């Protein structure tokens, strides 16, 4: 070890930098692990994904399936579909790799969203960290996009339906929609090129972008140092915590192992995307019920809830999917990108912040965040309106109406409750959110709890 360090230092003069790195201080707080979890999911995605690329054939060419999954024997399927069935049944350790890969993608995006919530509710996006907020939101966008390209690759009936909807969404864009859809898919749906294109995008283009931005995200974090929660001894001009070497390194590698362990258990024990049960994609058939992976559920939910409106002026049409599936996501990410600047503008707070807010310090921000988050959670559930309707034995159309009402009522309610509650905590000076009484929530008063 020492000899390697010596050899490197002779050539790069790296000792000073390396020492700084070893002594770098990281604050200890559980919520700071969320970003790390997503990073480690990404590492696991690259590892398992690389294995999968060696066996996947990105081709729509039709062949006759011959393999050990008997029900499909002799069926005409695409090479892409056949190769995924082969990975699942005939490649040793193939199924566990595939399932870990899929689970890792779901947890990856989930951890990014939770990380984003942590950053939002504690105000960690404020100056000087606006840049990293922007990079982070872009990473979320790329992760969702690559999740979609990934689950579309097996060319099964469920994902083919997803591609069909994606094509229709592209088609709905005013003026350029037809060209957009034809250029992406190679022609009218289902053009032959889409699987091989998605493959290049999924394994090269987007991962390269993610790696680049992730590098920048971490470099900026390294340069700016972590934020920390206010506590005795912690100021705007210091960082208090554990050193990278050895404590934080051991914890972080431990966390990586823990993430891998959970994904291993999921990948081995919890079946996911059994494409041999869905069957190969046929344009005239459709899986029912059909739900996208969770990270696109909010868009599908919006498609289901948006009323039957379509606009027309003269010979031009503005198709229905444009509003829930182009405009709504556009506004969502537009507002996400702009949030640090919007908040600075409304609060007139343009100063740098190294100490975090507790969510209760900022009842307005927390109320907005909780309300908006609830809005998307309702949309996510709305993407299962047919499944829920069957479960509760009500007509699906009644379920849709209920969701349309809930979409606005529930977030407003959540925002209101969070505002009053957090305001009471802030005014009373209570230490925790549970330490205020209902009376105080109704009439915020300074001082301890009225037990």
């Amino acid at each position, binding site marked *: 070890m020492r000899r390697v360090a010596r050899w490197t230092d002779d050539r790069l003069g790296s000792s000073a930098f390396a020492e700084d790195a070893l*002594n*770098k201080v990281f604050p200890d707080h559980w919520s700071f692990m969320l970003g790390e979890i997503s990073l480690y999911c990404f590492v696991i995605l690259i590892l398992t994904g690389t294995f999968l690329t060696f066996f996947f054939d990105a081709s729509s060419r039709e062949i006759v399936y011959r393999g050990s999954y008997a029900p499909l024997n002799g069926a005409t399927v695409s090479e892409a579909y056949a190769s995924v069935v082969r990975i699942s049944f005939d490649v*040793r*350790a193939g*199924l*566990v790799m595939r*399932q*870990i890969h899929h689970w890792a993608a779901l947890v990856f995006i989930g951890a990014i969203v939770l990380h984003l919530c942590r950053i939002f509710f504690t105000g960690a996006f404020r100056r*000087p960290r606006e840049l990293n907020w922007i990079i982070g939101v872009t990473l979320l966008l790329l992760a969702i996009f690559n999740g979609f390209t990934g689950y579309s690759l097996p060319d099964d009936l469920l994902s083919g*339906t997803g591609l*069909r909807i994606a*094509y*229709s*969404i592209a*088609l*709905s864009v*005013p003026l350029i*929609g*037809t060209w957009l859809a034809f*250029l992406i*898919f*190679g022609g*009218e749906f289902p*053009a032959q090129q889409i699987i091989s294109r998605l493959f290049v995008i999924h394994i090269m283009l987007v991962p390269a972008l993610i790696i680049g931005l992730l590098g920048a995200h971490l470099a900026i974090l390294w340069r700016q*140092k972590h934020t920390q929660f206010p506590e005795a001894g912690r100021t705007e001009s210091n*960082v*208090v*915590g*554990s*050193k990278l070497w*050895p*404590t934080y390194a*051991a*914890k972080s*590698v*431990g966390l990586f192992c*823990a993430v891998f*362990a959970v994904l*291993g258990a999921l990948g*081995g*024990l919890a079946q996911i995307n059994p494409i041999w049960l869905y069957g190969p994609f046929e*344009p*005239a*058939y*459709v*899986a029912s*019920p059909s739900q996208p992976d969770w990270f696109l559920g909010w868009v*599908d939910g919006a*498609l*289901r809830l*948006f009323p*039957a409106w*379509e606009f027309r002026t003269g*010979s*031009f*049409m503005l*198709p*229905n999917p444009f509003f829930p599936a182009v405009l709504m996501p556009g506004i969502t990410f537009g507002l996400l990108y702009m949030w640090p600047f919007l908040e600075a503008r409304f609060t007139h707070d343009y100063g740098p912040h190294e100490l975090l807010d507790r969510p209760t310090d900022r009842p307005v921000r927390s109320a907005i965040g909780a309300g908006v988050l609830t809005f998307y959670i309702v949309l996510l559930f709305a993407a299962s*309106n047919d499944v829920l309707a069957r479960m509760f034995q009500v007509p*699906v159309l009644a379920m849709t109406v209920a969701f349309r009402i809930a979409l606005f009522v529930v977030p407003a309610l959540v925002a209101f409750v969070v505002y009053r509650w957090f305001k009471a905590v802030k005014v009373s000076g209570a230490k925790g959110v549970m330490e205020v009484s209902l009376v105080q929530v109704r009439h915020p008063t300074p001082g301890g709890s009225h037990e």
Partner: protein
Amino acid sequence: MSEGRDATRLIAVSFSVSALASLGLLITYVVGGQPQVEGSLIAVSLGSLALGLILWAHNLMPTGHFVEEREPHGSTSAERASFTADLDRSGDEIQRRTFLGRILIGALGLLGVAALFPVRSLGTKPGRTLFHTSWTPGARVVTGAGEVVTSSTLEVGGVLTVFPEGHTKAADSQTILVRVSTAEFTPLPGRETWSPDGYLAYSKVCTHAGCPVALYQAESKELFCPCHQSAFDVFDGARPIAGPATRPLPQLPLAIDASGNLTAQRDFTQPVGPGFWNDPS
């Protein structure tokens, strides 16, 4: 001190369990592999590794309370001034010759536009592609397997997915054929001849987001799209009666030829499927 020894023992056990599980993983692979066993062993192997490392960090390594000072994020004003001075000095030459700068920008711009053109190679021209399907006048109606559909193929209440003969792979031509009782059904004005013997054919591509409108309820005479729950009234020209769809499913005018086979009178009279900006329907 004994606390430290306990922790050490626990960590050692964790690492040993991990080693055993890894060995098990190896053996599982060699003997042929089994997904559930592999997943469980990965979980045990990495889980106990995680446990050991975190216990080690928590109990035996120095934790918390180290303080690191932050340097200011911005540079000093002297550094900034010196940087702007350098930028200006080198920039003088460029500013003096604005003419060259403009030509350069023009040249780069054109290069950029030229570089965009290969994007055109990615797809065929939409043109009128979306305005028609593979249905032609006289085309025989066949099933997905290519079997010719005759006037006796369906009972009243029956449903079938059909294509124009020779185009069973044409996604835009997929059509849903239902047979209704001629006694109950009154065709829409102008469509009196489109449904011989109670055979009604509608485009199967949903006018909302393009999913196949695959579910048919014979009692309520409704077609239902499983993707976003649009419902269409078969007796009323497949008018949307619920869900996000706004336009009816285009109807295919049918005929029955001399040998009793179902044929198309002509293509759909409107573009099928989801809307697009210059969709005339």
